[in-house]
Structure formats: C-alpha cells, structure tokens
C-alpha cells in the first residue's frame, strides 16, 4: 500500500508542487497532478458496464448452469453442485481430455508453421526493393481476403473431397492417399493445412510490419562486418524482432486455442471425433446434444485454462523482458 503511493507518482507530485510554488499565481492543477488521475476512471465506466453486461454476466450464467444437470434431450434440469466438474476432472470424459490434448497440438503446429512461413515471407520482402516488396506484400496476403468459413467450405469441397480433391491431384497424390477428411488419421492435418493457408498471412503481415520498423543501418553494419546471412538472422534480426514475434505469436496462440469455425465447417469434429478441438467438442455437447449443464461445465474448464495461459504469457513477458506490457 505504501509502496504504491510512494513510487512513480511521488516524483510527479514534487514536480507539480515545485511548479505551483514557483509561479506567483494559483493555478488549476495540471493533468499530471496527483488528484487528477481519479477522474480518468470515469472514462472507463461505459467499458466496464458493457463488459459486465455482455461478458461477465453471461459467464456468470454459464457458471450457474455448470452446477446443474440441464439436459433437454433427457428433459432434466436440476441442481447437482460440482458433479459435472467431478466427472470432467476425474477423467470421466476421455473424449474431452483427447480434445484438450488435440487443441494443444493444434496450437503448437499451427503457430510453428505460421511462424516459419510468415517469417520467411517477411524476410524475403525485407530483401526486396520497396516497390517490389509492395507488390509481394499484397500477393502474400491474398488468402486472408477470403472469409475463413468460405475458405473452409471451399477447401473441403474443392481441395480435399472427391471428385475434385484438387490439392492431392495437383501434387500427384490422389491415387496414393485416401480422401483426408474421411480418414481419422489425416483429417486434422488436412484442416491444419487449410488453416495455415487461410489465416497465416496475418502472422506474415504483423512480422513484416515489425521487420520494417527495425533500424536498417544496424543490419547493414553487420553485413559490412562480413557476417553471413544466417549469422545476421540469428544474432541481430531475430533478437531485435523478439517483442514483435512474442506479441504476434501469443495473440495467434490465443486465437488458435479458441479456434472453432474451420473444424466445425469442415468436419464437425468427425470422422469419429478425430478432429474435435475443445471449442467444437463443447459446442457439440451444448447445441447438438442439448446438454447445456455439462457443456457449461466444460466451457468453464476451458475458460480457466485459456485465462491461465494468457495470464502466464503476460507474466512470462514481464519477467523476461523486464518491461511491462
């Protein structure tokens, strides 16, 4: 408590007092003075009200439902305490555990490929003349202009499924590989390829923007020193890019963790539940099997995990960078 009042604001306060006492006339307190920050909380009221009404209250209702057996197909709606959670946490639902692990795999794979592809594209662009780079920036970003669900339906019907299966046909694999979306071993990978094609240009755009913001003279100086391209990349460019990379990938990780539309549109979690991510598994429980109580409990578990991951990312960042986000 004492620490809070005596750190940064103290310096500001003495400055203000000094200014006020030096001047001959009494002044309105300046914006930086110590009594004035309170009024800014007023500017936060609308946001707080909306967050309460549209996010916190619905989540509260989810928490309430999670304590009930509310199942429209069986026609029950009764309070059961933590029974739903007991079932989930004791491993009574192996499909959910599998969807959780699959989601983590999905996040890691998507981020890894997005990063390698996006960084390669960004570095290629960085080595071009500005006019050329401008053209290639647009060429590389074209896939994100297509609405994700449109990409998902299009890849499903035209690129993966017979009789079209153009992706396999073009690569000459159509006689070697069974239609991937119908194969439990391959379906998730087909979805991952689709997601990377459709949505990785975001990572490219953000990384490329970060790369362009770097000081080119530092990098050019290292060329003069005779460093090889990969030495420069490893010791100069990537360290300088670290903040941009971290923020881009952590945003992307959150989005991938919550990912819903690609899987739902392409397979609805099938075949045989082999592509269910957490989002789609919960959605199926709630809206296909109309098991709202159990679905709510699963949603709360997912909420806790994703919040913990994002708080963890922020804390990790603050610790390793000594900077505050």
């Amino acid at each position, binding site marked *: 408590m004492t620490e809070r009042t005596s750190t940064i604001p103290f310096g500001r306060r003495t400055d203000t007092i000094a200014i006020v006492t030096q001047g001959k006339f009494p002044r309105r307190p300046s*914006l930086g003075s110590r009594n004035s920050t309170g009024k800014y909380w007023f*500017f936060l009221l609308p946001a707080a009200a909306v967050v309460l009404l549209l996010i916190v209250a619905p989540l509260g209702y989810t928490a309430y439902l999670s304590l009930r057996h509310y199942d429209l197909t069986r026609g029950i709606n009764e309070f059961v305490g933590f029974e739903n959670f007991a079932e989930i946490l004791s491993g009574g639902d192996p499909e959910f555990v599998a969807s959780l692990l699959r989601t983590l795999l999905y996040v890691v794979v998507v981020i890894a490929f997005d990063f390698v592809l996006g960084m390669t594209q960004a570095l290629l662009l960085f080595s071009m003349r500005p006019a050329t780079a401008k053209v290639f920036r647009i060429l590389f970003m074209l896939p994100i202009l297509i609405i994700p669900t449109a990409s998902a339906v299009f890849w499903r019907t035209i690129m993966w499924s017979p009789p079209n299966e153009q992706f396999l046909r073009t690569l000459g694999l159509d006689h070697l590989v069974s239609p991937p979306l119908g194969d439990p071993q391959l379906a998730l990978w087909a979805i991952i390829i689709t997601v990377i094609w459709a949505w990785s240009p975001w990572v490219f755009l953000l990384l490329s923007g970060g790369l362009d913001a770097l000081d080119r003279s530092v990098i050019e100086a290292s060329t003069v020193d005779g460093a090889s391209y990969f030495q420069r990349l490893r010791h100069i460019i990537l360290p300088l890019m670290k903040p941009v990379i971290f923020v881009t990938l952590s945003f992307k990780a959150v989005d991938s963790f919550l990912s819903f539309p690609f899987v739902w549109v392409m397979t609805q979690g099938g075949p045989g539940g082999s592509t269910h991510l957490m989002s789609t598994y919960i959605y199926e429980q709630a809206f296909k099997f109309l098991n709202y109580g159990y679905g709510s409990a699963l949603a709360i578990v997912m909420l806790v995990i994703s919040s913990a991951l994002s708080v963890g990312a922020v804390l990790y960042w603050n610790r390793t960078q000594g900077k505050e*986000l």
Partner: protein
Amino acid sequence: MAATTRSAVRSLPKYLLLIVILFWVFMPLYFLFAVSITPDGTTLDGLQPPPAVTGDNYEFVLTGQYVIWPALINSIIVTVGATVIAMVIAVPAAYALSHLRHKRSGRGTYLGFFVLRSVPPVALVLPLYIIFSGLGLLNTLHGLVFALIPLALPYSIWTLRVFFDAIPREVEEAASVDGAGTFRTFFSVVLPIATPGIAATSALAALQVYVDYIVVATLAGPATLTYPVYVTGFQQDYLALVGPLAAASLIGTLPMIAIFAFSQRYMRRLATAGIH
C-alpha cells in the same frame, strides 16, 4: 561477369523459395477462381485449363434463389453496428488507461482486457443462446449486434491505448493551462490527434466482427444470417453447388478488400501495437 554469376548463384535459393511460396499461395486461389467460372458438375483436371467457361455461377448467386444480398446486407448492418458501439466505448476507456498506465490499478485493468480476449466464444454463446431465447432476441439483428460487441471491445481497447500513449502529455497540459477541462481536452485536442489510430483500429475490429461464425451461427436465424454463415449453406443445403460457392466466396472478399485498403496505411503501426 564472375561477380554477377556468383551473386546469381547465391540468390538462387531465394528465388526457389519465392516460387514455392507463390505456388502455395496461388494454387488454391487458382482453383477457387477456375471453379467459379466453370459450369457446375464439371471436375477440373488439376491445373489443366477449364474445359468450358460460364458466368452462370455469378448469375446464380446474384439473382438466383439463394442470393447473396440479404446476407451481405445483414453483414454490413451488424458489422457497422457492433464496431461503432464498441469503438465509442473503447476510445474513452483506452484514453483513460493511457493516463493510468503508471498506476498499478491501471495496468491491472489493462491486463484484464488482454485476458478478456481469451474468453472462449463458446462459453459466451451458450448462455447467450438461453438468455436471448428468453428475451426474444434470437434471430434479430440488434441481438446479434449485442452479442458481437465482446468480439471487438477488448481487442480495440488493447490496441488503442498505444495510440494515446504516443500523444505527448505536454499537448494535453497546454490545453488544460488554457482553461480546457478534461472533457474538452479529450474531445477537441486528444481525439483529433488520435483519429488515424482510431480509424485503423476500427477497421481491424470490423474485420473480426465481419468474419465471425460462431456467434451468428448460434444466435441468428434464416432471416438474419450473415455472409460467413451464408457461404456455409452451400455445402449443407446445396451439396453439389461448388461453382456458386466459389463465386460467393470471391464476392465476399469485396468488403474485406475495402477494409484492408482503408487500414493499409496504418498496418505498420498496428503491427507494433501490442508492445510497449
């Protein structure tokens, strides 16, 4: 001569890489376009040119029984509505957080908005579906607008603060010395300076609302569905219609192109927006 040969050899891997990446990006785009101009029921033979060319698919989605217009209009209404409301709320909040960033409570609130981004949409649409069905908000456009605001709000607050942080405090102090109160300073001094950042953030917030699938698919009905849900209808109700699907997908890029063209100038600053 020797030098140019050597540099050509050295940049060979670069060009190979470029070709592979361009193939990766454009191969699917080629099929999307080719299918959109091929008569329905034709299967393309890999990269061979289409055997016949037609405008039927475009005609079908522009004038046929499953036209794009209602969905496109719903998309525009819902996207503009949710984005405008979210920005009206987010701008003052981000301004406040910029001023409170040296306080522990202010930083904590800011981090809270980052964590709000990680709320699973499925955990929101589930209760909203039950609440909305009780309030009669299912299958209404204003209901959709309410439900879509949470998609845009935390992101906008998070991004906007950077633009307010960039405004020198002296500018505001000068205004306050001249006798402007907090609100006048905010409206007549701070807002004009921050306009480019607000415009860029609005564009990207609008993009997130426009492409949403889960909220609309759950809470909308046939009369209120938006473009991203409409395009998925081609695989369920009209199983064989890949041609019209491709045509509709390409038409659906037009709003995206408009949004990107608008925000492109600010892209670089948005790229570094999460970092302070």
